[in-house]
């Protein structure tokens, strides 16, 4: 017999296991942190409502279930225009304000400047590359895990990551000066 407390414990385990990956996915899709948090909440609210179905699934299937919900929410969000507008606003805001928000010693300013360029370069990546990059860096996922979550071959994910890194390196002049 399960209890409300048992349900909460099962949910918390699922939430803790997948929250960073799901959040990283939405960061890649919508760029706007606030909207990404809202979509994370909506995704896990659906997990909570279907806990008896999701809870017993093995890890890989659980991840696939959660990301199916996440993908649908991202699509719905784009349909309403909210995500697209938020992404454009966020990218514009980040490009114009990142440098001014990082102040202090010279090294920090330099790092801030590089991060601003990185942010802008990530914003210029095709969405599928941006999502893969975000899920691997912010979500800490492997190419195989990303592939499982998004229903794509791991090789495709690896290719996207490789392309993304090349574009970022070029945008940051890392190929030429090695710095």
């Amino acid at each position, binding site marked *: *017999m*399960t*209890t*409300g*407390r*048992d*349900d*909460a414990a099962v*949910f*918390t385990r699922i*939430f*803790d296991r997948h*929250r*960073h990956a799901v*959040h*990283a996915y939405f*960061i890649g899709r919508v760029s706007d*942190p606030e909207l990404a*948090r809202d979509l*994370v*909440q909506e995704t*896990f*609210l659906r997990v*909570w409502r279907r806990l008896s179905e999701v809870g017993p699934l093995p890890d890989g299937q659980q991840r696939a279930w959660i990301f199916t919900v996440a993908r649908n929410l991202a699509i719905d969000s784009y349909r309403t225009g909210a995500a697209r507008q938020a992404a454009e606003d966020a990218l514009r805001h980040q490009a114009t304000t990142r440098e001014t928000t990082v102040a202090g010693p010279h090294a920090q300013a330099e*790092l801030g400047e*590089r*991060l601003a360029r*990185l*942010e802008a370069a*990530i914003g210029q990546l095709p969405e599928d590359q941006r999502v893969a*990059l*975000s899920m691997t*860096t*912010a979500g800490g996922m492997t190419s195989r895990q990303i592939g499982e979550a998004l229903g794509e071959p791991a090789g495709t994910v690896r290719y996207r990551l490789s392309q993304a*890194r*090349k574009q*970022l*390196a070029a945008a*940051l002049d*890392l*190929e030429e000066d*090695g*710095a």
Partner: protein
Amino acid sequence: MTGTAGHHLDQLLAVWAQTHRLTDADAERIRQTIVPEDLALPATWWSDFNSKVSEVIARATAMPAPAVAAWT
């Protein structure tokens, strides 16, 4: 991309990832919004409660054994 360049890109991406990660505070806020704090009652509390009430009523209204013996 050179090895050094790749290393620098990794470092920058690590900082970028850090600034974009869901913070523990935000995660907890989301979790608490979804899972109500007053979730103290088990999901089966009402059905258990009803069963016990029915049992008590059945026992209270049952005819005592001596009465049954006298009756028959």
